[in-house]
């Protein structure tokens, strides 16, 4: 934040800290009806019949509806739209997600029957009375069994369960590089399946307004993404659909598309003529929120005798679950990060989407970026270990220097700027890397194993990289002394209301409490990015800066009229339009008053911004851990980050984003994993009691230093921050665990590195040594 206005905390906080937040479940409407969905208890089964008679007769029940009713009303499945080929070269099978399963269920938790009642208790009770006759089918719950010959096919049309294939790079070139290499190291590893677990579960309230339009209040991060999907399903023009998002209690990528329940509340509202609300229970969240990650990596890195990288090859099999959509492709769009911050002469990689009988996977904080960084950063550590070179030094030897910018990685990304060595030396200093060996020796005296892990993440932001998405915003200056800002990006907890309001206040010279921030209403703007891809500041904020330019330009025209001068002669500063060289001036709000008298539009301006290219936040993470070898218990003793997120607009908010990102990456590295029973494909970790969510005591103090190398891609110089913490922390934490265990001859441990796994690895190593 610039010096002009003192920062006094987030604007949204007083509302949220006093219980006055407006989340979907907090809305109160007359005649509100409540929805409950009966979900599949089988991971894979045919539906022989559904008997809803008893449920329909239950107290308070207003409707009991099935997939047949949906079909009768002409409502189809959620769209797929994937054009990639499958393994036979033909276009991907359009494996669309149904709103309610009709003749077959493909994962535990799939919506089969919708019940609407006067109360949610009545709807749930009626759910117990629905009789569904299933014919169970064999199921697959992981990539390896899904690819085995003779595996059950999730889709009959795709017998090998390979939904899509994607490749880039020349394999022969890599083979030649590897053949001439002094060392080739290989990483086979699984980036576990996890779930976003937003504290606010998903929810939606649908109603039909006075004009007959479909209106949905949704817990979503992508109102403008949701609108065309819903309009398409209801076969109406997009102008007949309005999406509203109030406060959203976290989303992390998970709430970025239209879900079946969003369709159901609108459909039921239309049929019943009443508003209908569905709020997810936590047990439903675990089963039916889109899951994240679940990527199987098989990657090789070739190096010469001096440790110079010669080539990289990576194969990424993504467990996409049972349905296919654009959201299933996150690993492709963000894979470019495997190039890291290094000069790698040849990179070849492939991605395959694999069907299983599990909930679909989709973007989750980082969305392919943490997986890509994990691959390259683990490979470098494996190479360093093999070559007996310090991992820090091996990285330094291969860095892309600032003089090489802009740097074409030769794969998918072209980095515009970055000072990677500066990140590393800064982190080494902040983490007291020089003192690490002494600390390791001190730990050893206490019988503990200490490890230091490094990762140099670089991630694409404000994408997709092929064609960045556009954002819109608008401003109204009112004679009542307020400035209203509408943005196409939105906050789902990041404090964007604050960041944007300060941008407006500082530029227009008004106090921040005069700014009214409005987000998440598809009626107010032509479009908007919502939240995602670390783009709120770099794209949304830069869009607001353009809209502010347009506001001032418009104000100069109006002021020129008022002051009987030419717009070119009007200067704007500190909330006043002044005729240059005179003391004749009008205030921002006097201009608004004049404009309101002159025309209905008043003093308004709009802006849009589509970045010419993406940005690349980057940094260096150093994670230091200590392990008790007798129990496998792990403690993160310090965590250090030097992050180049470009120009920092609000340091407090940026710090919060980095903290939160690290929390999610570290937690996946040490504890989080969705576990499915191999045979039944039932979820075994379906509650907070058996799925590890980090608590206060699980997380270290995090030392953060930002190192600003502004991008020229947008006027603010901001690169994006939302995903940075997560992208580096997965690799840094696992590298630290492996470093701690390396004296025992252990080279790799799979995430999550739980005490049980660590203890077992230590025991195995001791037994192997004894043998």
């Amino acid at each position, binding site marked *: 934040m610039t010096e002009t206005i003192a920062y006094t*905390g*987030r604007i*949204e*906080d*007083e509302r*949220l*800290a*006093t*219980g006055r*937040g407006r*989340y979907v*479940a907090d809305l*109160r409407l007359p005649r509100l009806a409540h929805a409950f*969905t*009966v979900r*599949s*208890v*089988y991971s894979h089964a045919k539906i022989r019949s559904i008997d809803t008679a008893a449920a329909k007769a239950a107290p308070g029940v207003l409707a009991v509806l099935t997939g047949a009713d949906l079909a009768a009303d002409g409502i189809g499945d959620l769209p797929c739209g994937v054009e990639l080929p499958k393994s036979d070269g033909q276009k991907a099978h359009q494996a669309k997600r149904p709103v309610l399963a009709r003749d077959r269920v493909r994962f*535990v938790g799939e919506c*089969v029957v919708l019940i609407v009642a006067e109360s949610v*208790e009545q709807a*749930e009770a009626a*759910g117990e009375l629905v*009789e569904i*006759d*299933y014919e169970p089918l064999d199921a697959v719950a992981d990539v390896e069994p899904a690819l085995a010959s003779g595996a059950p096919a999730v889709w009959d049309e795709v017998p090998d369960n390979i939904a899509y294939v994607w490749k880039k790079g020349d394999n022969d070139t890599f083979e030649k590089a590897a053949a001439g290499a002094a060392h080739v190291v290989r990483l086979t590893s699984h980036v576990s399946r996890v779930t976003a677990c*937003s*504290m*606010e*579960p998903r929810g939606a309230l649908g109603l039909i307004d006075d004009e007959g339009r479909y209106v949905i209040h949704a817990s979503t991060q992508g109102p403008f993404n949701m609108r065309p999907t819903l309009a398409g399903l209801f076969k109406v023009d997009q102008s007949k659909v309005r999406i509203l998002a109030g*406060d*959203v*209690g*976290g989303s992390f990528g998970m709430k970025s598309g239209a879900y079946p329940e969003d369709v159901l509340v609108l459909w039921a509202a239309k049929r019943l003529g009443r508003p209908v609300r569905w*709020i997810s*229970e*936590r*047990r439903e969240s675990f089963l039916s929120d889109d899951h994240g990650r679940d990527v199987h990596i098989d990657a090789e890195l070739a190096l010469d005798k001096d440790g110079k990288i010669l080539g990289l090859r990576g194969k990424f099999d993504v467990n996409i679950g049972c349905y296919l959509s654009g959201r299933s492709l996150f690993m492709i769009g963000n894979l470019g990060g495997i190039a890291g911050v290094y000069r790698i002469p040849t990179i070849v990689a492939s991605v395959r989407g694999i069907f299983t009988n599990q909930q679909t996977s989709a973007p989750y904080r980082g969305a392919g970026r943490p997986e890509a960084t994990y691959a390259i950063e683990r490979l470098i550590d494996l190479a360093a270990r093999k070559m007996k070179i310090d991992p820090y030094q091996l990285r330094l030897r291969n860095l892309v220097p600032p003089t090489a910018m802009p740097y074409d990685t030769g794969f998918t990304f072209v980095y515009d700027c970055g000072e990677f060595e500066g990140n590393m030396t800064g982190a080494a200093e902040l983490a007291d890397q020089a003192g690490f060996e002494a600390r390791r020796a001190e730990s050893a005296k206490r019988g503990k194993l200490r490890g230091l892990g490094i990762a140099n993440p670089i991630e694409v932001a404000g994408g997709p990289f092929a064609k960045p998405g556009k954002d819109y915003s608008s401003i109204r200056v009112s004679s009542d002394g307020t400035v209203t800002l509408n943005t196409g990006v939105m906050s789902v*907890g*990041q404090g964007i209301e604050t960041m944007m309001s300060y941008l407006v206040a500082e530029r227009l010279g008004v106090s921040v409490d005069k700014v009214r921030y409005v987000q998440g209403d598809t009626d107010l703007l032509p479009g908007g990015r919502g939240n995602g891809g670390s783009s709120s500041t770099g794209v949304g904020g830069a869009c607001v800066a353009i809209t502010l330019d347009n506001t001032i330009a418009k104000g100069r025209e109006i002021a020129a009229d008022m002051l009987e001068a030419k717009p070119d002669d009007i200067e704007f500063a500190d909330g006043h339009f002044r005729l240059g060289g005179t003391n004749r001036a009008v205030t921002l709000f006097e201009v608004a008053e004049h404009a309101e008298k002159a025309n209905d539009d008043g003093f308004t301006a709009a802006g849009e911004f589509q970045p010419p290219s993406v940005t690349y936040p980057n940094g260096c993470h150093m994670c230091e851990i200590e392990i008790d070898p007798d129990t496998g218990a792990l403690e993160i003793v310090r965590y250090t980050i030097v992050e180049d997120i470009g120009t920092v607009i609000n340091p407090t908010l940026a710090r*919060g984003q980095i*903290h*939160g*990102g*690290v*929390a*999610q990456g570290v937690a996946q590295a040490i504890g989080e994993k969705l576990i499915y029973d191999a045979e*039944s494909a*039932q979820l075994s970790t379906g*509650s*907070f*009691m*058996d799925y590890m*969510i*980090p*608590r*206060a*005591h699980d*997380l270290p103090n*995090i030392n953060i230093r930002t190192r600003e190398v502004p991008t020229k891609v947008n006027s603010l110089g901001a690169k994006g921050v939302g995903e940075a913490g997560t992208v580096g922390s997965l690799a840094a934490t696992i590298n630290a665990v492996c470093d701690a265990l390396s004296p025992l001859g252990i080279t790799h441990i799979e995430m999550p590195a739980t005490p049980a796994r660590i203890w077992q690895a230590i025991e195995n190593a001791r037994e192997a040594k004894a043998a």
Partner: protein
Amino acid sequence: MSTDAEHTGSQGRSDPPARVTRRAALQTAASAVAFATAPASNAQQTGPTTSAAAEGSTIRLIVNGQPRTLSVDPRQSILDILRETLDLTGTKKGCNAGACGACTVLLNGQRINSCLALAAMHDGAEITTIEGLAKGDDLHPLQQAFIERDGLQCGYCTPGQIMSGVACISEGHAGSVQEIKAWMSGNICRCGAYAGIVEAISDVAKGGKL
């Protein structure tokens, strides 16, 4: 609290019985752990109170200083009463299983997971929710400290964190960072704002403002 059968949407005869039994066992175990690790006040929930089995019991509560007489369904939790009957939506439902702390309120001065407390069992109780902390326009010191220390992001867990933090301090469990972390372990913040949460509680505990 809901039965586990709903976890997979029980359809009677189609259910694989072994699976449901195992899940039900897990769920029961989960509740037991929640009781065991929660602050001592939770023990009150198991004590005998009014005849909760009767349909439509009438109970009296004092909520944020206001006396309330309520007809309650025996299945309703204090959380549901607060949110759905009294429209006090500041208290949040995060898991409905006592495992996330988003629904924390003070019951007779002690923190509880209101999703696990059946309303019918607490006739005569005095309840304080997030809406009852501020004095008019003056925020409670811990609310102010959360704002100053950036102790929240999405805000959904925040009412529960603050109520739990108030009790953490009044119980005398805020003497050190480690102690605060341990005694706040029942409250999840998925946004990872723990550093600010702990600092805020520490500030208020040190300042003796409560």
